[in-house]
């Protein structure tokens, strides 16, 4: 069997790509396919599995599977390798425009990523993490793109539900306030500012005690985080909005889903949106703005809206929240949809692809 080495710009602990790369690495071990993970930046918690990409020595018959989500030196390095067979796994790239005013370096990396995607269009093995990503790849000239969804490790999330952090999260939110949740990095394209505006409507006209819980790292954009804090302050929502920061899969993420009455996503750019799947798993009704990859992930479940009318969305969330029959109907639809993404299905698909790559 051929070696399959995985490459990426950063191996980040707890993010969708990092989790997925580790999942592939474990699956390779089960299948007896040798391989390592190479990255430019490696979270120390993954030190046992990963190496710096410059440690890689190119060899005939090896497969280099590159996870593309941002521009990086790793892509340039791989494009220069002559002996190995390149393969690409596309996780989507946020359009640079969202970072233009905030972080020009990050915006440039996004642009560079799009350029690098085109350079990989000739590869024989192309994998997309979602149907939407596949469409983007095809638009860049890729042919024969296969879709392999993320495999969400629910067992791991549920194990995390029993740890002390989860207990402290439960204790902190142990009240009967209606809680709207969003999980995702605090970055402009995810539009947390629209969720705050939604909360302002909800607080003013529906429920003064409503709580918006924003979970996700804000390390990617301090300026956007600052804007959100200013918005909260100016709209007098200090008691209604909580920016909780990142809560890892192993660190009690389950507790926030258990506590949520609704999961609302206003994001304008998503390749897949793993938190939607997690919310579905925990039986939380999902309400999402139907942009980019979101409709493909929700399928025919959940509630999609095509316009950011805060009144319509808030009234729908409130109405469903107060009607157990309707809520259950929505949650049942989501449960059915979850079958497409369950571990057995996604792992089987991934196994087939890996075996084909290694053969």
């Amino acid at each position, binding site marked *: 069997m051929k070696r399959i080495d995985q490459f990426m710009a950063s191996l980040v602990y707890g993010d969708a790509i990092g989790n997925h790369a580790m999942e592939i690495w474990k699956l390779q071990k089960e299948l007896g396919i040798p391989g390592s993970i190479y990255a430019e930046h490696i979270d120390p918690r993954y030190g046992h599995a990963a190496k710096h990409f410059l440690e890689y020595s190119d060899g005939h018959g090896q497969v280099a599977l590159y996870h593309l989500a941002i521009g990086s030196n790793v892509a340039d390095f791989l494009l220069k390798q002559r002996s190995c067979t390149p393969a690409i796994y596309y996780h989507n790239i946020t359009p640079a425009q969202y970072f233009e005013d905030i972080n020009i370096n990050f915006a440039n990396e996004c642009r560079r990523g799009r350029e690098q995607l085109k350079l990989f269009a000739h590869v024989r093995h192309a994998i997309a993490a979602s149907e939407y990503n596949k469409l983007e790849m095809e638009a860049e000239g890729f042919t024969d793109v296969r879709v392999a969804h993320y495999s969400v490790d629910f067992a791991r999330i549920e194990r995390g539900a029993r740890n002390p952090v989860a207990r402290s999260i439960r204790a902190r939110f142990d009240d009967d306030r209606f809680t709207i949740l969003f999980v995702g990095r605090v970055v402009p394209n995810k539009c947390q500012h629209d969720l705050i505006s939604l909360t302002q409507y909800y607080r003013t006209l529906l429920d003064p005690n409503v709580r918006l819980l924003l979970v996700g790292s804000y390390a990617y954009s301090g300026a956007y985080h600052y804007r959100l804090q200013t*918005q909260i302050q100016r709209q007098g929502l200090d008691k209604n909005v909580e920016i909780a920061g990142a809560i890892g899969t192993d660190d009690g993420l389950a507790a926030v889903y258990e506590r949520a009455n609704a999961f609302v996503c206003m994001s304008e750019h998503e390749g897949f949106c793993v938190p939607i799947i997690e919310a579905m798993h925990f039986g939380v009704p999902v309400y999402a703005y139907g942009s980019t990859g979101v409709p493909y992930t929700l399928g025919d479940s959940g509630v999609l809206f095509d316009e950011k009318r805060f009144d*319509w969305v808030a009234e729908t969330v409130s109405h469903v929240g107060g009607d157990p029959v309707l809520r259950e109907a929505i949650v049942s639809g989501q449960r059915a949809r979850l079958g497409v993404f369950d571990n057995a299905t996604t792992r089987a698909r991934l196994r087939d692809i890996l075996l084909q790559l290694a053969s």
Partner: protein
Amino acid sequence: MSTNDSTAKHPHALPPVRLSGSLVDAWSLNAVIESKVAKRRSDAISKGIDYDNLATGKFDMQSSGRLPQQLHEAVFQADLLRDKTQVQLLVSERPLPIIGRVVERMRTALHQAIIFYVNMGAQRQAAFNVEAAKSLTALVQALEDEVEHKEAALQELRAEIRELRGQVNAIERKSPGAAQDAGQ
């Protein structure tokens, strides 16, 4: 807005909320929401609430913060990276038969010695960075407050000027002769 099975039956009015799935009657739910929105709107307006701004108004993100966002971001990132100066051991396995382990041990020892001295310097650099990042953050915050304070004072002055102009105009209207005299 887009159509789905349930909305396609009523092509004359497409609802902003699209509910899919056979378990939910999307059309009747949208009708309920529509009537709720209409009632809420009229109640809010009767209480003097700016409903349309609440329902669709976007928060002006540009107005949040007086200094360029690039500056905020740069200071924030500097603060995040202030103590990330140390390096870790990165020695990959070499698939060499028999001597592989010995080579690996020697390389590890060599790398560790280098890392030890590099990190000594890095620690000093981190201590400096912490102070520099703290100062920068405080400086930007003070600058932001200062600009905001000045803008507020400017607004007050503008309002005062408007008021004074109003008073002058009122005086002029009352005594046109006086204004003519003043003009001469």
